[in-house]
């Protein structure tokens, strides 16, 4: 069964590149431009994994992450935070909000795909 991935970022060009990349890797991909849209899409699309940008207008990535984790329907959903801030404190903050992984921009496509594959592999909690 095709895994579903939601990509959230306020940068159109990033959405374009990630959507293309993930679709080519065989995933079902949806995109969102901000926090509110991300929550709505998560509801509708029920992704197995979300690539979530931290610095976004309206709700930021941390808050979206926290709200998703409060909802039992998204319990199994993996969340990978994407951020342009590379400091340890940001990583720790993200993990504290319930994120499963964390990638610092700019990342290589290979690195991203490896992370996604590992998280979506069966048996991975």
């Amino acid at each position, binding site marked *: 069964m095709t895994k579903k991935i939601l990509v959230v970022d*306020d*940068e*159109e*060009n*990033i959405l*374009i*590149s*990630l959507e*293309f*990349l993930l679709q*080519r890797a065989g995933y079902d991909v949806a995109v969102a*431009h901000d926090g509110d849209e991300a929550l709505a899409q998560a509801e509708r699309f029920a992704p197995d994994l979300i690539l979530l940008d931290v*610095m976004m*207008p309206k709700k930021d990535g941390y808050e979206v992450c926290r709200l998703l984790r409060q909802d039992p329907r998204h319990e199994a959903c993996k969340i990978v935070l*994407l951020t*342009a*801030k*590379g*400091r340890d404190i940001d990583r720790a903050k993200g993990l504290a909000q319930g994120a499963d992984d964390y990638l*610092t*921009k*700019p*990342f*290589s*496509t*290979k690195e*991203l795909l490896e992370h996604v594959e590992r998280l979506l592999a069966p048996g991975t909690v």
Partner: protein
Amino acid sequence: MPSAEGVFSWQPLPAWLAAIVAFGYLSLLFAVAYRADRQARLGRSLTDAGWVYALSIAVYCTAWTYFGSVGRAASGGLWFLPIYLGPTLVMLLAPVLVRRMVRVSKEWRITSVSDFIATRYGRAAGLGRFVSLFVFVGVVPYVALQLKAIAFAFDVLTGVPEAAAAGWWSDRSLWVAVVLVIFAALFGTRHLDVTERHEGLVAAIAFESVVKLAAFLLLGAWVTFVVFPGPGAIVEAAQARFGTAIAPLDAVDGLHYGDWAVMILLSGLAFLLLPRQFQVMVVENVRVGHVDRAAWQFPAYLLLINLFVLPVALAGRLFFADVSLDPDTYVLALPLAQGQSLLALLVFLGGISAATSMVIVESVAVATMVCNDWVAPWWVRRRQVAELGHAEIAGTLLWVRRVVIAAVLACGYGYYRLTGESFALVSIGLISFAAVAQLAPAALGGLFWAGGSRTGAAAGIALGVLVWSYTLMLPSLAKSGWFEAHWIETGPWGMVWLQPERLFGVEGMAPLTASVVWSLGLNTLVYVLFSLVFPPRGAQAQGARRFVRVESSAGAGGVWRGRVGVPAVAQVMARFLGEDRTRELLLGYARERGLAAVEALEVDAAFVRFAETMLAGAIGGAAARLVLETLLEEATPSFDDVMHVLDEANQIRTYSRMLEEKSRALEKATRRLQEANEKLTELDRLKDEFISAVTHELRTPLTSIRALAEILADDPDLPREDRLRFYRIIVRECERLTRLVNQVLDLAKLESGHGEWQPEALEMRDLVQEAIETIVPLAQEKQVRLEVSIEPGLPAVWADRDRVVQVILNLLNNALKFVPAGAGIITIRVGRQAAGEVAVQVADNGPGIPPEFMPHVFDRFRQATGGLAKPPGTGLGLAICKRIVEHLGGRIWVESLPGEGARFTFTVPIAERLEPGNEGGGHDDEENPSGR
């Protein structure tokens, strides 16, 4: 005055025998004194014993006591008693009163009663001089009285009236006086320093006290138990003969109980303050502890010596009832009449001893007083004294004392010869008592009350002496027939209320009582009042407090500024005290202060006080002060020194003021540092944020570029369409990066103030046109309408051309981003704003700025999205605009309501307002380095 001879005859003793016995006795006295002095030099003090001290105090019992008591008892009954009750009561208080006097006197090295008063009132030299003069005058009659008693005793013993003697050279009392001068000079002026007591003198006095007591007791016992079967028999016989044994108290001369009280008070005060009493009780005291034992030993002595007064008096009256015999002669007449020559001789010796002991001590005490109060202060100031050594100074001063001793006796003798028979023994003694009592308020008040002042003491004593002279001395002299006496009865110039013996018309008191009440009462009142009105101040008050509390002289020093060193002071001390003694004293003083050697001492106030006290013991307080002042005045009170001290004080004040200022400045600096630190911390935080923001802005396009580049690289078979799309994105993102880097650098340049500015007078119209020309293609692309209105006749602005164009372009680009495509309208207006400013306004019809974002419009990396997706742009444009406008000396602001577009306005000062050459508001660089 009745006398013995002729009326009642007995077998007189030969004159030569009396003379031999008398002079033999005096020789014995020399031997005793000599031995005691030698023992003292060998370190075995004979006088360091409580009973010797008590016996020496018995110098109080003079010939007056010896012959007079019986006389008074014979005529006045118990009236002889009060002059012994006073001292007895005083001695009961000795542990408090006398002990204190002794301790204070030792502490201050006080040499006499006048020195005591002068020292207490701040080394008041004048007061001391007055007191010693007054005491001298008051004591001379008393000395005369003793000489008279000696002559009288000779007369009675030998039956030859003195008056009948061939010439003054055959007057035995004169020769006795001469011997006494020699004795007093020999044993009473051995040392200059008061702390080296006159052991021989004291031993001789104690010996004399034993002799007079023994003689009187023997006589009394003989009269009571040999002549009569016992005291009871005498009283019975007297009652049988006279109807009453002794005269009732109020039956004699109208005596009242008040007279008793006054007499007790008077004798008590005299006992404390008579020069000879002060000498033996205070000055010659070896140990303070002796006072406590004397407190009962001396009253016991008084009890013993008075034990047989009444029996002897009654026996005398019974025995000589039929003859007119002076009762004062009873003690000698009784044994003579019974043929007891040996006993008579013994009694005679007792009388001699009573008289001589008084004369010796009194003259020594007065000599010390006069020498220290009158001669020494005058003499030590003379320059030539400064060249003399210890031996010469001590020798001279001791000779002065010897001369004064001789003078006292000469005066006494002269007085006695002049007044002859005119004075009763008793009245002379009491006049002296009343005189000395005038010192009591100042002396005793000063001992317990620190508030007593010099003014009070001087006024009190002066008034007391005046009243005493007027109410007691003058009437007494008048009665002796020295001058016309009727005014004593009528008052001077007929003013009855000024009658000396009934002052202010107060009746009913005996003349003596009245005089004492008035003189002592007024004296005390004036002393207290004047002390309250003119309280002691400064050094006098300080001294008074130390005096009253018996604080140690080695107390806190205080400041002494002087160039005189310890050696100089020590040299002066040595001149009066001797080398060895001085070294000893200085070493003791140094040890007391915890210093190992004299060399470690410093001349401070405490040291000067110490030196003064030590010198006071030798030459009296007043002279000691003068000596030290003479020494120190070269150092201290010179004008230069005072100015120097003032200078220093001024300097210290200046320093302190400077310190205060410094401290204030430091506080201010600290505050400013704190502020600066806070500012720096804030700047640091802002810088961190800026870097973080820049990083974020750099990473975001990099992310797209890298992802797309990797996609392109991984898949060469990508459809051309996608490939081209991706390439375009990559190029755009690279442009974005370039723009960002440029703007960051631009901003950094603006903020650091290193930007290149080329201000000049410019027409704003040209600048706006230039900017619009640049933006027109973009506007056309987005189908945005540009509306331009420029006010005509605007003055030139003073600005940098490129920078102003940059600002206008930024604003136009910004507006272009937000206006709706196809329906966008951007309005540009140029006109005058406030005086001296030209304003440029750029308005759009975009979504406007949300109110919560308004404060952050000009912040870096803050971009309002206006509900759209993230607008293109670095987020630095408006921040740069703000920096540029502010640098040019203008202002920039924005007005907006959501949904109604935004209206940015900036101003630039006109060229006239700013001096050409002034870099157009360049000051802002410094004041606003952060570029906020």
